[in-house]
């Protein structure tokens, strides 16, 4: 309601308001706003009664100005980690509150591996090592190194293979990658038919 009345009272108050404001601000010599009559009266009285002090207050005081320039603030705060008291609880509560990154294989690997068992990381490692160098890194070596039964290692090495990755030669237009089982690839020889040889099938334990 008040807004409506003020619109009626001074209808041109907001006319071209922004331009007028900018014009006023950009003036080089700005006039101070007029003082309240009571304040003006006070000021006049001070001027009359303490004229010397008033005149001095208008001048620049060199010593005080120098003191102000000499002020320099230095902080001696300790880092917040040292400052905060460490929480020491005897109860088995979680103490570490930092964010954990994901595990490489999607799960936490155990610290102690039971006898006759292995982790995925170790299994992948020995499978790929065996494929690179089957003579030196044979099933016997793996069985001895990882405390696994020889028959089991033979089975794992027979049935699980690490992929050989084929990246297309023309890189600029492609984003695809191919991964094929890295058994001896029959399809690399052009005269041979494109079928998997039967010796790689099940039941051939002495590979």
């Amino acid at each position: 309601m008040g807004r409506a009345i003020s619109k009626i009272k001074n209808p041109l108050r907001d006319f071209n308001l922004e331009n007028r404001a900018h014009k006023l601000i950009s003036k080089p010599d700005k006039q101070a706003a007029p003082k309240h009559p009571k304040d003006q009266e006070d000021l006049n009285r001070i001027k009359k009664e303490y004229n010397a002090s008033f005149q001095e207050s208008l001048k620049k005081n060199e010593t005080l100005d120098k003191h102000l320039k000499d002020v320099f603030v230095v902080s001696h705060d300790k880092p917040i980690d040292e400052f905060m008291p460490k929480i020491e609880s005897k109860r088995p509560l979680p103490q570490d509150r930092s964010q954990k990154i994901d595990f490489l294989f999607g799960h936490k690997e155990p610290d102690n591996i039971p006898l006759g068992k292995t982790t995925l990381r170790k299994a992948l490692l020995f499978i790929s090592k065996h494929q690179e160098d089957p003579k030196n890194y044979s099933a016997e070596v793996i069985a001895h190194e990882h405390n696994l039964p020889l028959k089991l290692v033979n089975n794992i090495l027979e049935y699980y293979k690490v992929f050989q990755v084929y990246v297309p030669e023309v890189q600029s237009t492609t984003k695809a990658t191919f991964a094929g089982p890295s058994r001896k690839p029959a399809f690399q020889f052009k005269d041979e038919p494109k079928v998997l040889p039967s010796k790689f099938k099940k039941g051939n334990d002495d590979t």
Partner: protein
Amino acid sequence: MIILRQVSFLKCIGSVIRRSISTNPDLRNPRGYDDDGKTSVHILNKDEDLALMIDGYSQVGFKLNNRVTVLGPMVIFPRSVLSWNINDINDVNDDSLSLFKVLVPKLDIIVLGTGDKVTERDVFASFRKFSKDHKISFEILPTETACATFNFLNAEGRNVVGALIPPQTILHFTDDDIVKSSLRYDNPFVRN
């Protein structure tokens, strides 16, 4: 007879009126989705931080969400993949499952994709013994459904392993799949 009818009719009207002036808000507003109509879809396979997942399958292999096409049967772990040197579901036995029984931490579940749907139950008899001996549960499905099951279990962060054999016959496909496949065979290295 007529009076009886009238009475029942009046009763009926009464119940209609009572129902329509009920103060229970559940009766007035039908339950269900009552949001502003904006919904969002989150595709699990496109979130590469989540885990390794299967984008597609064919008679020769699988397409994974890290832009790798895998040929032949595979054993897929949450973040790693191995080739599985077997021919078909008849080769799956204690020996060819040997890796799963030595792994620590113990696997939660093995999703076994049998390739085509297997109707003979005798094939699975040996898995029951394996599952009981090593306390690992099995989910035996045709590969077409096993892929999606593996993806979901993997997204949930379970210690799942997918042992998948490519299917020989593909039952569920769309026209879009056919077009995309033919495009891919024209230029096999371009990702569609």
